[in-house]
């Protein structure tokens, strides 16, 4: 295989990992605080639709992204209301949110644009353009002729949208917030032993709402990235299970930020390979594309089964907190 081909696959790995990483970090904040969230998919989907629609209407991608974050936050509040205030089943709430988003996006997009549940194609300032780092080559022919180091710089490191770089920066930031600040300590404590946090005079409800809202913001960015950076419009069901792959990555990463980056890069690589090569021929054996698609899920089940190191979720995850009376 040619060197440039490898670089190109890695380049698309980075692009495909970004929404996974954002959603995975979103789930990290929520689940570390003890709120299971299987509604990542729905929040991303709704954010994708609203960011594309508002970006088209306003002609400004940043306004679009804000709208997407707002939509995602609305669903976060529903999830918070169900699982924190009314102490309902967090998993069922997540399922409901996924369906709500899946239905509403098509209804609204159809009613606004009448194009069978998609938004018009975004152009110019209505979408995120690639950022070219100083000195990087931009034409494919120039890159092909350049030396390997320049190829890596121009193809892999330069030329991504701003969100890709932001999402990478969010990894150390999340680590710092969760493991180096008082807020992070409390947030993690509330996911392990909420009663202890409550005894210390800190509001469990407030902390959990904050974590759920952080989750909403990150899912909103992830959705906006899908519709305004990775692609240039919203299409029906465009998240295509990414919310669940992110959930899988979160388990794979054992609820840790740096591990989340590695897990998302791995799952992104699998997607990039599946997109580029379809069936892979290795000697006599053909690896079918379906195996590449299913591999993130299979790996997660194996990890969950505890055969390769055990994944232990936050102890109070999924349980509503009832103050003793």
């Amino acid at each position, binding site marked *: 295989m040619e060197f440039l081909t490898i670089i190109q696959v890695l380049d698309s790995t980075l692009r495909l990992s970004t929404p996974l990483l954002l959603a995975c970090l979103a789930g990290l904040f929520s689940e570390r605080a003890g709120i299971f969230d299987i509604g990542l998919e729905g929040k991303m989907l709704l954010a994708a639709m609203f960011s594309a629609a508002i970006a088209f209407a306003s002609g400004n991608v940043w306004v679009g992204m804000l709208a997407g974050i707002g939509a995602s936050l609305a669903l976060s509040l529903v999830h918070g209301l169900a699982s924190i205030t009314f102490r309902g089943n967090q998993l*069922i709430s997540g399922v409901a949110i996924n*369906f709500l988003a899946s239905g509403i996006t098509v209804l609204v997009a159809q009613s606004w644009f009448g194009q069978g549940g998609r938004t018009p194609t975004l152009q110019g300032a209505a979408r995120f353009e690639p950022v070219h780092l100083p000195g990087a080559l931009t034409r494919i022919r120039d890159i092909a002729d350049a030396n390997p180091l320049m190829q890596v710089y121009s193809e892999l490191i330069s030329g991504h949208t701003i969100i890709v770089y932001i999402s990478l920066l969010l990894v150390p930031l999340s680590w710092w917030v969760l493991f180096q600040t008082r807020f992070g300590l409390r947030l993690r404590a509330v996911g392990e032993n909420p009663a202890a946090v409550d005894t210390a005079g800190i509001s469990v409800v407030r902390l959990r709402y904050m974590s759920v809202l952080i989750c909403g913001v990150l899912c909103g960015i992830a959705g906006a990235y899908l519709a305004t950076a990775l692609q240039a419009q919203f299409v029906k069901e465009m998240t295509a299970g990414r919310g669940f792959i992110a959930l899988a990555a979160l388990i794979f990463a054992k609820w840790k930020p740096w591990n989340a980056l590695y897990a998302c890069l791995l799952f992104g690589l699998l997607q990039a390979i599946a997109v580029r090569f379809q069936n892979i021929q290795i000697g006599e054996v053909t690896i079918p594309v379906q195996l590449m698609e299913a591999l993130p899920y299979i790996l997660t089940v194996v990890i*969950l089964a505890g055969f390769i190191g055990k994944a232990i979720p936050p102890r109070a995850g999924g349980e509503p907190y009832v103050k003793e009376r």
Partner: protein
Amino acid sequence: MDKMPKWADAILVPLISLLLAAILSALVILAIGEDPRAAFKLMVDGALMRSAGWGYTLYYATNFIFTGLAVSVAFHARMFNIGGEGQAMLGGLGVALACLFIPWPHWTLALLGSATLAALFGAAWAFIPAYLQAKRGSHVVITTIMFNYIAFSVLGYILVNVLRPPGAGDPASVRFPEATNLPTFQDMFSTTANPMFRSAPANVTFFLALAACVFVYYLIWRTRLGYEIRHFGHSQTAALYAGTSGVRITVIAMLISGALAGLMAVNTTQGEAERLILNSTEGAGFIGIAVALMGRNHPFGVLLAALLFGFLYQGGAELALWTNIPSQLIIVIQALVILFTGALDNMVRMPLEKLFLALRKNKEAL
């Protein structure tokens, strides 16, 4: 002391939830500039006022009875089986293998064979998540979600590489032999003078679904195993102390759940499509969640809720046909039903409990 009488818990709470979902859906229809009353009338006309409409309503209801029962059996053991979709996909594979590779002399025998294989395949697909939950403590919700996606890939691989006839474009098997085709309601109830259920897909599988309701009722409330499942669901520690094996109950409850979800494929694959296609489940596995929650995990409740969702799906298809409202409206309604009956249950329940307590106090004061 119970805060609420039983009838209020079983009937009032779901009805209020349904009402809330209906009001919000009406607002959604208003928001996209359509008339909710006209939409409702169109749905009723299309789904319930003609025998062909009923033929579709009952066809969808058949799917939802199976998946609703599947979710509710797992719920009784306090497990949330989101894997109905994948289990039904594998059930479809079982149906296809039974119909394609065994020369059945008559549809009755074919139905018996395909239903057995569908249940076996569905149960097998539920076995690994069940075993991992029971033995290794991996959360069954996450593993069944993962298994849905794996099932899709497995089915895709088998359809593209094994069952697809050479030269065909779309990933689907060949048509099943004539002898395996199930009688539809049209075949059963139409006379030349009075044609009924014209070209509607409802078929004999509906009666199999009714039988499954009766079976689940007896299983859960009239057998020792059912007692153990409910006991385990109410209090794991008490059940373990009483000598029930947690591993056994977890695995058996999930196997029954998977088998019921797998049986759904008899209706879609053998009853309607008469060949195996990639997306024959069409989300019915997930609708089972709404049906089980709405039906309060009781087979009779599941039957009613399945009929309601059957009506919604057929009505939604009519809406998409005659108005500008996409059929995705039904997904919104379904989401709202799951939200109100499942996650926001306490929001409906708490004020009601207060109301009943206040009423009782008044009575005692008199």
